[in-house]
């Protein structure tokens, strides 16, 4: 479960201060399929980064999977990102000049415990996103849709409960976008908590629940 309790994210510029998120409270249960919807600058990405432990709030608590993220040190937070969440970004964020296979297995490099059936798992995931014929390809040799599918496979390698997708279809044509949404929906059906950040109302409607953000507040 994700419990967001009176969370704020404040940016200071000298004496000026700006709240990207202002006193937000919301709960997301395990296995939910949720969209965070809002116009540009409303704080969607900021919220997603906080849930995923990529950033820290300036106020409030985030309790994810019974862990209060504020109480974790930097190293523990890195381990949290490694084990408990999978990120999917609008711009794919694969490592250039590195094979599809190595990109998918990247989180394993930073895992403390070795998976017993590592290779099969990587191949299985690559297969499940339909790219087993391109294992040795570099990101630059893949289409946008293919790159995003690699990113999805990467986010799943450590079996996290939560998938955080920030505008996952933003850089894709409708056909590839639909394909990615279908994969995410399937993941949710298998029990994952899937959170999609978007400014697209139609896309948000595909999920089970919409959290609307405006100017850093939930409306």
């Amino acid at each position, binding site marked *: 479960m994700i419990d967001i309790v009176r969370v704020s994210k404040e940016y200071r510029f000298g004496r000026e201060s700006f709240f990207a998120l202002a006193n937000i409270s919301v709960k997301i249960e395990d296995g939910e399929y949720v969209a965070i919807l809002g116009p540009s600058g409303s704080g969607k990405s900021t919220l997603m980064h906080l849930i995923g432990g990529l950033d820290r709030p300036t106020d409030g608590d985030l309790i994810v999977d019974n862990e209060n993220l504020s109480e974790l040190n930097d*190293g523990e937070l*890195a381990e949290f*990102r490694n084990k408990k969440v999978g990120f999917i970004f609008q711009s794919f*964020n694969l490592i250039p000049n590195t094979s599809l296979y190595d990109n998918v297995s*990247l989180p394993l*490099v*930073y895992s403390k415990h070795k998976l017993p059936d590592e290779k099969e798992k990587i191949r299985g995931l690559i297969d499940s996103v339909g790219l087993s014929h391109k294992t040795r390809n570099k990101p630059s040799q893949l289409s946008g849709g293919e790159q995003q599918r690699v990113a999805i496979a990467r986010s799943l390698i450590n079996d996290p409960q939560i998938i955080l997708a920030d505008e996952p279809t933003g850089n894709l044509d409708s056909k590839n976008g639909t394909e990615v949404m279908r994969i995410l929906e399937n993941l949710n059906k298998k029990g994952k908590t899937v959170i999609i950040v978007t400014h697209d109302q139609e896309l948000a409607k595909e999920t089970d629940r919409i959290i609307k953000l405006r100017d850093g507040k939930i409306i």
Partner: protein
Amino acid sequence: MKLLISSVVIALKSIAGNKLRNSLTVLGIVLGVFTISTLLSLAFGVREEVTKQIEDLGSNLIAVVPGKLNASGGGFNPSASLGASTLTEKDFDSIEQQLPEIKNLSMAMLVSGTVKVSDKVSSSSLIFAASEKILPNLNTSIESGRFFDNVEIEENSKVVVLGSKVKEMLFVSDNALGKELEIRGHKFQVIGILKSKETSSTLFGPNLDDLVIMPITTGWKITDTKQIFRMMMHSPTTEQADEYKSKVKDIILTNHGGEEDFSVVTQEEILGVVGDILDILTAMIGAIATLSLVIGGLGVMNIMLVSISERTREIGIRKAVGANNAHIMVQFLVEAIVLSFIGGLIGSSLSGIVAVVVSTLSPIKLVFSPFVVLVSIGFSVLVGVIFGVAPALSAARKDPIKAIRSE
């Protein structure tokens, strides 16, 4: 372990991805390591040579030279004492009488001049006059003919013994024995040829093959001065070298009315001084080598900073999937080390090649030992660590969100 292997793989990939840029960077390290490695080989080579000389001459060699030298630290210059000598034949006789157990007691003087045979002149040869037992003190012996004897010394005979190079120069391949040559207007008969040594003596400086030796008395007569610029001898045993050194010193001191206008040195002291000079030289060139390594290191640091700023986004991605600061730190530190290690490997290999070539083509011996390889490569790794830490730290400290949003 997995992290280390993956770091090395990432490092090699990144280095391979920027071959030209990285080659230029590595060049600095190559130069530094090459210098260090070659200097070390040279130092070891010379040291080996010096040790060999001590063993050849026997460390029981004792020499008396005119003038007061400060052998302990002041530095010993073999040629500084070529001026007017205060050593006398009496000193020689006193040692002979009071220390009959001493071996190979001999004396020598320098006779300036050239050696002529009809139209051939050898001006580079060094003409010495010496007493009968000089040869063991020079660690050489007769190749053909004979050395002059006591009778010839008594009679101021005009006979000479030639170094192999002088012989070749004046007589080419002819048999020189019995032939005549001319020194300072006097006719001399060649009675012996020295064995070719190709090594120099620390006490005589020049190559022994360049020597022309006549009886000491003949030297005194033709120069009309009774100079002695060296007395050389061996103590009965090696252990007694220092003991006999002071005995000899006391005898001469008494003769000179207490005035210490001469010095008694042992072979070990002289070679020790040579070793000291070598140490200073090694230290100086070592400093230059270190400087070039530092410059190489700065190159590595620079290229790491460039590489890190180009890969900021990659750092953000790695952090997003679970890399902590230490992981990122290790990755870039390893990259810096791999970079300078490659430089070290190349520099050290080049130095190995140079060592083999120089050692075969010239008399200079370079000892390129596993120790030298270890030290030079060790240095390169050290440079990688020292100059990689700061960039690696800056990479590790990057904020993941800013990093992931950067282009």
